[in-house]
């Protein structure tokens, strides 16, 4: 759309440009015509200024009259000076006639043959008087002069009159020309004004166009900025806007408004909402959560900022004048507020949220660090149980650092052999003989020392290294077992990542071949939860493993769902009863009953049973009475390195006659 606008703008500007060029061309044309008009007018004016024959004509008439008058005066006075004057004026008249015959006046006379003839007649008459002027004292001559002169004066007056008429006509023509020119020039000036006005109008139009284009560009820039700073779904600030606001708030400092607090908020079970009700419902829930958060944060006053970083991760930035306790209270307020049912088109949904929060103190100047702290607190809150809030403390960062250290150390640990396999014996309770070992991973970190398996296995699972570690343990267990003096089996735990790989049976087979361990001496342990996630595939893989001759054990039996259907769907070789039953054996009569039932059930299904976590003689006694045969736990020994196995094994076998060789396969107990 923006594109369309700019295109329209471009064509408009193009048209206006063309018009402007045309108008300018018109303007230039008008100016040229105007210049030409001025030139023509100038010519007319010049013509009007040219020699004025009227004046010459008038003076000629006067000269003629004067000549006659001087002669008459002499006739009256007879004075010699008047005779002299008469002669002078005769000469002046002759001179005038010469003037009328040459130059501009000559041209005027020549324009009419009658006028030429008339002037020639007058010239002849006046010239003929010249000899007579010498005898002017003679009265007869004087009369002749007066007679002839009177005729000549009449002719001269006629020509002089004509000159004046001609001059008047020409003047009238010139006036008319000038008037016309003036009208024409007025029209040109009007045209100039019109062109100028059009040009001005176009310029202002173009200026308006440019202004509109600029405004449109500014608008789109603002919109883009908004888009860049907004989460499109909830219209909350996005990560960019949140980071900017946090940076700004940190730079501004406390300013008496209280410490800055960053809350990291996570919806519990949001994935389930998405999976079960669809993404539309998930989105509606996010919007509802967003509105409610804004409502809650708005209620605190001040300039709190709610943002959505993505998924179901929300953050709240606010100032807490009363520090951590107030932040905690506000976190609880949000948990409670968001827990109230969200009325969506899909029905009411109740969600729990978990909140981690961190305060900005004098030491914290890094916005990223604050957000990380809040996230760490959130992780801890989640780990501790959902629907609660947790403030960040420095130990969390230590944990995180340790976790990073552990995660980064896996590659080295495997290549340097820091991760080793230890073995915990499984003992036949009746005889005390060792009937098997469980392989357990142990890691002595170069910096951190011994790392509990529960810790690094979890990290390995999260970081995707567990399959590697699992295979490493499996290989070393097979090799170590193959070197034992007795043919006791070894149990190895499988991880969900290993089980998910379709080539697991092939890899197990090649390890067995590589180490020379007979398949029936390898027990692979899986938990119920591992099978649950994709049970059809998992069970298929287990069947292929079983087909190799490997034993398959169900670990931690009795916890989780303990769906008995799994006992039907797969022919397990062994059940390992979860240690939680053993631990409560002495205090809870139910536990004993459950173990007895499991043992009985297993016997009927022809599955052997091992109990884990046996730590005391009384536990041992109770379990034996419950029908358990094989047990594992500290009471019988901790996990030890492979090197000690042979000794342990030989010692345990030494307790009983060799003839009473234990049923190593543990079946038919």
């Amino acid at each position, binding site marked *: 759309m923006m594109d369309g606008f700019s295109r329209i703008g471009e064509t408009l500007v193009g048209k206006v440009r063309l018009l402007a060029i045309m108008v300018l061309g018109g303007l230039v044309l008008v100016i040229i015509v105007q210049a030409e008009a001025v030139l023509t007018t100038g010519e007319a004016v010049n013509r009007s200024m040219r020699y004025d024959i009227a004046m010459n004509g008038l003076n000629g008439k006067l000269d003629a009259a004067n000549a006659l008058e001087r002669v008459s005066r002499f006739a009256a006075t007879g004075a010699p000076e008047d005779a002299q004057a008469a002669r002078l004026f005769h000469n002046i008249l002759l001179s005038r006639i010469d003037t009328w015959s040459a130059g501009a*006046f000559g041209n005027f006379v020549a324009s009419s043959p009658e006028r030429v003839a008339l002037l020639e007649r007058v010239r002849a008459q006046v010239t003929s008087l010249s000899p007579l002027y010498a005898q002017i004292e003679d009265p007869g001559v004087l009369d002749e002069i007066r007679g002839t002169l009177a005729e000549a004066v009449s002719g001269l007056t006629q020509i002089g009159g004509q000159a004046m008429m001609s001059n008047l006509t020409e003047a009238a023509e010139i006036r008319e020309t000038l008037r016309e020119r003036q009208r024409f020039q007025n029209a040109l000036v009007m045209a100039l004004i019109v062109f100028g006005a059009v040009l001005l109008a176009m310029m202002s139009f173009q200026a308006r166009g440019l202004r509109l284009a600029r405004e449109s560009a500014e608008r789109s820039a603002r919109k883009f900025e908004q888009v860049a700073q907004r989460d499109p779904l909830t219209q909350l600030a996005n990560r960019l806007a949140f980071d900017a606001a946090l940076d700004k708030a940190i730079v501004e400092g406390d300013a008496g408004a209280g410490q800055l607090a960053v809350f990291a908020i996570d919806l519990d079970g949001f994935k389930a909402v998405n999976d079960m009700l669809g993404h539309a419902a998930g989105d509606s829930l996010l919007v509802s959560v967003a509105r409610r958060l804004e409502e809650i944060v708005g209620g605190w006053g001040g300039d709190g900022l709610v943002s959505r970083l993505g998924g179901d991760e929300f953050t709240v930035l606010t100032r807490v004048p009363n520090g951590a306790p107030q932040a905690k209270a506000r976190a609880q307020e949000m948990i409670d507020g968001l827990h109230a049912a969200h009325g969506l088109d899909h029905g009411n949904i109740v969600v729990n949220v978990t909140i981690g929060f961190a305060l900005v103190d004098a030491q914290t100047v890094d916005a990223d660090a604050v957000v990380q702290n809040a996230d760490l607190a959130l992780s801890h809150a989640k780990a501790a149980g959902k629907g609660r809030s947790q403030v960040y403390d420095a130990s969390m960062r230590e944990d995180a650092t340790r976790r990073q250290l552990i995660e980064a150390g896996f590659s080295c640990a495997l290549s340097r052999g820091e991760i080793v396999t230890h073995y915990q014996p499984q003992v036949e309770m009746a005889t005390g003989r060792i009937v098997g070992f469980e392989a357990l991973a142990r890691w002595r970190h170069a910096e951190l020392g011994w790392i509990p398996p529960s810790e690094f296995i979890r990290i390995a699972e999260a970081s995707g290294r567990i399959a590697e570690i699992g295979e490493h343990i499996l290989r070393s267990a097979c090799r170590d077992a193959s070197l034992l003096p007795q043919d006791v089996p070894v149990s190895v735990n499988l991880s969900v990542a290993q089980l998910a790989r379709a080539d697991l049976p092939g890899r197990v087979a090649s390890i067995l071949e590589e180490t020379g361990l007979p398949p029936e001496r390898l027990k692979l342990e899986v938990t119920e939860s591992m099978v649950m996630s994709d049970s059809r595939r998992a069970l298929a893989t287990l069947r292929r493993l079983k087909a190799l001759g490997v034993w398959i054990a169900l670990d931690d039996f009795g916890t989780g769902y303990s769906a008995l259907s799994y006992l039907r769907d797969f022919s397990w070789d062994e059940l390992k009863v979860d240690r939680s039953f053993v631990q409560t054996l002495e205090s809870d009569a139910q536990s004993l009953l459950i173990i007895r039932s499991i043992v009985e059930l297993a016997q009927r299904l022809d599955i052997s049973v091992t109990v884990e976590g046996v730590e005391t003689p009384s536990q041992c006694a109770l379990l034996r009475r419950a029908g358990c045969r094989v047990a594992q736990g500290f009471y019988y020994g901790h996990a030890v390195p492979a090197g000690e196995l042979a000794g342990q094994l030989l010692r345990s076998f030494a307790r009983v006659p060799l003839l009473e060789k234990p049923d190593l396969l543990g079946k038919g107990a």
Partner: protein
Amino acid sequence: MKSLRLLCAGFLLLVSVLASSVLADDAVVLTIDGRIAGDTAVDFTLADLQALGVERIETTTPWHDGAMVFEGVSLSRLMEHVGAQGDKLTAIALNDFYTEIPLSDAEAYGVLLAYRANGSILTVRDKGPLFVIYPFDRYPDLRNELYYSRSIWQLRRLTVK
């Protein structure tokens, strides 16, 4: 005899005509008065004027066919000579024609009081004895009614005002 008498009369007439048209050497051709040195009118004969030096203008005029060569005295030289104090001249011709000439024209255009044209002394019949001449060809701007009217011929008197 009658024819002889006629012949004699014709000869006498010719002499008198010649005498009337050719001025005597001591005849006054120009009088200058008004605001000049001494405040008394000064008369000039042709010889007086010629004594002030000869200037020359070649130009066409509205009153002649073809270009003419005029010779005479420079008006500014003449004004200097009489010690003129004013800023304009009134000029009067033999036939009482009257015109006014700004004194500044004399300097600006080199105005001439011509007494000779194409080598011949100007008679009354030739618009003499003095003819005010502007260099119309050299300054085309002068070719208009105003300057034509200042170009007085048969000049007789100048009054400095």
